[in-house]
């Protein structure tokens, strides 16, 4: 682009004068032998240049100067503005018209080019502005959404921490009040041994519950950060299910457990502890959300293309189709549209999120289907067999998640 000074119109006129003068001087050096046609072409070149660079005003000035110089120096009689030969009149007029036309035309082309350039710049500017505002609005939206998510998560975590804390605090203050009463004169301790034991049991159990909650948070954070380490070893799906059922036994005592494992399922190289936790979570949920005495059906079958499919089915109220994907989101339970009055408060809202994290880390997937009966939920997960060679598996990592 031109430096600023060159763009001033006055500079254009100066350049027109200088250009024509320079051309005249250079041509004069060749003497009077030079052909008028060459002179005319040289002047036209200067006019063209001036017109392109500075537009029509300086181009007209250059044209007039050129005409005068052409007449004065190149058309006989030389060094006068008179023209003797009518032949030369024609040359003079043709030169004049050509000079002015060329000047105007090239100036117009330049103006058009400038206008086109300006229009292009304007379009670009608008485009960037639009893009910028789009970006800003989507950023604001994302920020707002993440703020909302954060505060919902915080609410959920706060609630889940406070619930066991409430029981602990109530038990501990009951014990303390009893202790203070027994320290005072003439006061008899009010709690009997059984009562003191129960208060201590509650404190103990709720402390464990807090610990499990914090453990769950840690696992989730690891899954989120992609830092879950699988401790893979060869095992069978029977063993994994047996492990999970043993752990879930206290919670499933009032349910009828039906286990159906297809024979000849291949051995799998997986993190058995992690996967038994997945089964445990599903069985525990089934027991929690279905009436006592109802059956919980666990099945393991070969799935499509070298996979094993495990399903856990209950006869509870089931899960509505529109939230079937969302139940795997962390804290989904507690976030159900903020309607605290309708919240099922058992569970941490982390179990299924962790289960999905574990299954996906094994290269498998987990989902929900409507149960085969008229009511109930059916959770399924699918694991690739021979998964030790799969991408994403990390055989070097042997730390337990």
């Amino acid at each position, binding site marked *: 682009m031109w430096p600023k000074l060159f763009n001033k119109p006055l500079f254009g006129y100066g350049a027109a004068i200088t250009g024509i003068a320079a051309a005249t001087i250079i041509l004069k050096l060749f003497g009077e032998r030079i052909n008028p046609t060459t002179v005319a072409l040289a002047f036209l070149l200067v006019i063209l240049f001036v017109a392109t660079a500075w537009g029509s005003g300086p181009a007209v000035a250059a044209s007039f100067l050129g005409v005068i110089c052409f007449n004065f120096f190149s058309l006989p009689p030389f060094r006068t503005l008179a023209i003797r030969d009518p032949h030369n009149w024609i040359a003079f007029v043709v030169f004049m018209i050509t000079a002015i036309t060329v000047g105007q035309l090239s100036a117009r082309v330049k103006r058009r080019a400038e206008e086109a350039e300006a229009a292009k710049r304007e379009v670009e500017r608008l485009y960037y502005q639009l893009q910028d505002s789009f970006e800003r609005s989507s950023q604001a939206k994302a920020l707002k959404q993440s703020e909302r998510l954060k505060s919902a998560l915080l609410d959920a975590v706060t609630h889940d921490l406070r619930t066991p804390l409430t029981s602990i605090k109530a038990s501990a203050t*009951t014990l303390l*009040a009893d202790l203070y009463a027994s320290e005072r004169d003439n006061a008899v301790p009010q709690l009997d041994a059984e009562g003191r034991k129960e*208060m201590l049991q509650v404190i103990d159990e709720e402390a464990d519950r807090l610990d499990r909650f914090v453990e769950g948070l840690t696992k989730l954070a690891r899954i989120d950060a992609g830092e879950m380490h699988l401790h893979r070893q060869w095992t069978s799906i029977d063993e994994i299910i047996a492990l999970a059922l043993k752990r879930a036994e206290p919670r499933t005592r009032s349910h009828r457990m039906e286990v159906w494992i297809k024979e000849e399922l291949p051995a799998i190289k997986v993190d058995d502890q992690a996967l038994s936790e997945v089964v445990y979570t599903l069985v525990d949920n089934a027991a929690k959300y279905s009436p006592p005495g109802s059956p919980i059906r666990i099945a393991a079958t070969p799935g499509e293309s070298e996979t094993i499919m495990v399903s856990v089915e209950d006869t509870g109220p089931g899960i509505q189709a529109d939230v079937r994907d969302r139940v795997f989101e962390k804290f989904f339970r507690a976030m159900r549209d903020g309607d605290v009055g309708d919240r099922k408060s058992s569970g941490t809202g982390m179990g299924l999120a962790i289960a999905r994290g574990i299954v996906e880390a094994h290269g498998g997937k987990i989902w929900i289907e409507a149960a085969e009966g008229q009511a109930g939920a059916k959770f399924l997960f699918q694991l690739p067999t021979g998964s030790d060679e799969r991408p994403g598996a990390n055989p070097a990592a042997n730390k337990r998640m």
Partner: protein
Amino acid sequence: MEANQRILVVDDEPQLTRVLRRSLSTNGYDVRVAGDGEFALQTFRDWPAALVITDLAMPNMGGLELCRRLRAISEVPIIVLSVRGEEKTKVEALDAGADDYVSKPFGMDELLARIRAALRRKPPADPGAHILEAGEFRIDLEAHMATQSGKDLRLTPKEFDLMVHLFKNAGKVLTHRSLLGAVWGGDFTEQTEYLRVFIGQLRKKIEPDPSNPRYILTEPWIGYRFNPE
């Protein structure tokens, strides 16, 4: 010890109801537990309790609805258990008919003190009676006169109305909204600054130290509580 007074505990958290059942019965109350509002209402019909303690967030029927339904059939004192920080829910519960609230986690002493206060609260005065008395205070509704330790308090008519309303609900947490509605009428229920001014004036007349009140207590974000003792 007010032996054998019945308390109905409503919470869906079994560990907490376990503690409350043990602790309250050790303190001489007869305790029953319900896991949700619906079961609580059923229990209350067959077993009219002297006091109901309820959680707010429960499956089936929550605490708010339970307060409303209980109020429709009974004047039983209700203490609401709520997670700290949920001021909006507390106000809703109090407006729905709860008398008091305790924030989780709570110390058992605090809950027991609130229970004693709620049970001590006299049933609504006989509409024919025109003398109200509590602690040092005495209000003559006919003569439109309030005295403290025998001394005339010289209340303005609005201050008098406010005092009477506080008096009739002594010990109970009154939300800004319910106080404004009761004394100024329904159009003024959002004008909490009116209330602040009148409470301030009333405190100047009855409190020994108005900046550190002992009779009209502030419940931050919620309202006020009148404690005549």
